[in-house]
């Protein structure tokens, strides 16, 4: 485990402080937007453990987000369990689902892996869609009983800030531990990593579980924030959208996907005010990234910085 760089500590303290001050501006709109962005940041960062760090393309990540969302909402509302049990149970179930699905998926690699994660993701979507008595089917699960102490948007904002803050810190530690480093080694050369004694399958399975678990946290938060969970959140196009967030920011850096999530989500909210054709805008953005920004915004920033330093 490497020591946490001082600059990172200072930077995150600054970001946390600025975020904590957002509600004092008094704009409900800004508070809602920041809450949503924080949730998507966590979602994109969770995906990056699997896609960026271990190099496994998944097209079914939205499923764990949805499992977290549905479980937390159902336990809170249908069963009336307290948040302190419902929330961890939802995260645990998302992790268990990822463990189960991952068990089958990690046996395959590359495009086979991607197709299998997609198929499993859609299986989970189909269950949410058809299990009407429990999930509400295509009407969605509406009217979530959110506990009173996080019932208004300001307290929920702080709740999200704490949960996402802790989760991101934990993810950073995981990605920069020996485990994270080994994941990168496996990504770069699976066979060599195997030769030096790494159990690559078990490692990729672990990455799958970590990614699913943290996606579950994001999903549980999102369900409570919306006071409802909808079956679309498990659809494969959602998995595609979060992949684009990660790609836009930059897959091969820890904070890239966070940046990508913030930028893309803000864009989406902004553009939706003017046109219903957000998908075509997203498609063109995606095309542009693929063609001109292979390393994402972080990569672009680094390129500009090196050029600047060379000139100076």
């Amino acid at each position, binding site marked *: 485990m490497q020591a946490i760089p001082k600059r990172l500590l200072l930077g995150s303290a600054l970001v946390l402080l600025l975020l904590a001050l957002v509600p004092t501006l008094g704009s409900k709109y800004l508070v809602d937007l920041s809450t949503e962005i924080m949730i998507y940041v966590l979602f994109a960062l969770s995906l990056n453990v699997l896609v960026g760090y271990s190099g496994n393309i998944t097209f079914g990540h939205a499923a764990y987000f949805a499992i977290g969302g549905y479980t937390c909402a159902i336990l809170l509302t249908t069963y009336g369990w307290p948040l302190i049990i419902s929330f961890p149970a939802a995260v645990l179930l998302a992790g268990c689902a990822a463990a189960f699905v991952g068990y089958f998926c990690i046996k395959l*690699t590359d495009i086979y892996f991607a197709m299998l994660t997609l198929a499993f993701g*859609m299986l989970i979507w189909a269950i949410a869609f058809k299990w009407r008595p429990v999930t509400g089917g295509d009407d969605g699960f509406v009217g979530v009983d959110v506990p009173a102490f996080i019932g208004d948007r300001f307290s929920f904002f702080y709740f999200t800030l704490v949960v996402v803050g802790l989760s991101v810190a934990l993810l950073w530690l995981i990605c920069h531990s020996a485990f994270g480093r080994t994941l990168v080694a496996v990504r770069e050369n699976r066979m060599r990593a195997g030769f030096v004694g790494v159990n690559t399958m078990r490692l990729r399975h672990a990455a799958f579980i970590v990614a699913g678990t943290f996606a579950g946290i994001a999903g549980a938060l999102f369900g409570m924030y919306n006071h409802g969970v909808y079956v679309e959140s498990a659809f*494969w196009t959602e998995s595609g959208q979060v992949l684009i967030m990660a*790609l836009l920011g930059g897959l091969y850096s820890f904070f890239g996907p966070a940046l990508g999530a913030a930028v893309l989500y803000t864009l989406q909210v902004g553009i939706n005010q003017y046109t219903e054709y957000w*998908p075509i805008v997203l498609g063109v953005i995606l095309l542009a990234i693929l063609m001109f920004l292979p390393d994402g915004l972080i990569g672009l920033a680094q390129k500009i910085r090196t050029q600047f330093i060379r000139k100076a």
Partner: protein
Amino acid sequence: MSMLANPTFVFYQFMNSISLGMNMFIIAAGLSLILGVLRVINFAHGAFFMFGAYVCLSVVTYLNEAAGSFWLGVVAAAVVLAAMALVVERGFLHYLYEREHLTQLLFTFAVVLIIGDLAKMIWGVDMYNVPYPYGLDGAVDFGFALYPIYPLVLSGIGVAVAVGMWLALSKTRWGRIIRAATQDREMLAALGMNVPMVYTGVFVIGSALAGIGGALAAPRVAVSPGMDATIIIECFIIVIIGGLGSLWGSFLGALAFGFVTMFGTVIFPDWELVLAYVMMLGILLWRPWGLFGQPEEDSH
């Protein structure tokens, strides 16, 4: 369940399963071909399918449902989709083969997003129905039951496409080149073959099949936005079951999908969708590379 005791009903479902399966085969065969040769998971295939259905709809409407307008629509769908595929492959995808799988996969996703919205801009968000083609709107008398002609013809076209593709792939020079490209593209290039041209050709043919499949499906289903997102997943199920790049695998997978869907609706109403996934998982547990696929070589 009790409906399964009724032989006429079982006959209906049996025939429906085959026509659904054959329609799916025409679409999935194109996807499987592209996957086998280009090694690209082509999400755009579903969007091409939808576009084919819309093109057919437009031709049929424009000609006031005249005799032959439907078949003209099918041809138009094939031509339009082949042209679109040519632009997509030569203009963009062509430059991405050297990049990682994620790039190619997300590129096809971008195509899905763009084509889906284009279709919405052109045809709106309403649901449309295409009538059975002129002369095929009747039924055949099997003695104990009547069955509509069009699904029978559709099944016949599916079998014809399968046999035609098999002959083309196994008996012709181009077929041999395409099969060689699925095995070892570097060797093929070393032998002086223009591999990029093979890729373009396969992508165009595969996409034209999606267009034809969409046009042929138009009288069977409601033509509407969103039909692209479900069909692509169903095609993946079929291709995974059959094995990537295997023609007969896709054929068998499509039939299995047809039967599971049609009889699943009766035996487990509402859960037929889940049933198809469960079938796929069962097969994957047994043979991860699909029924007719080759075990994956560990690259790197």
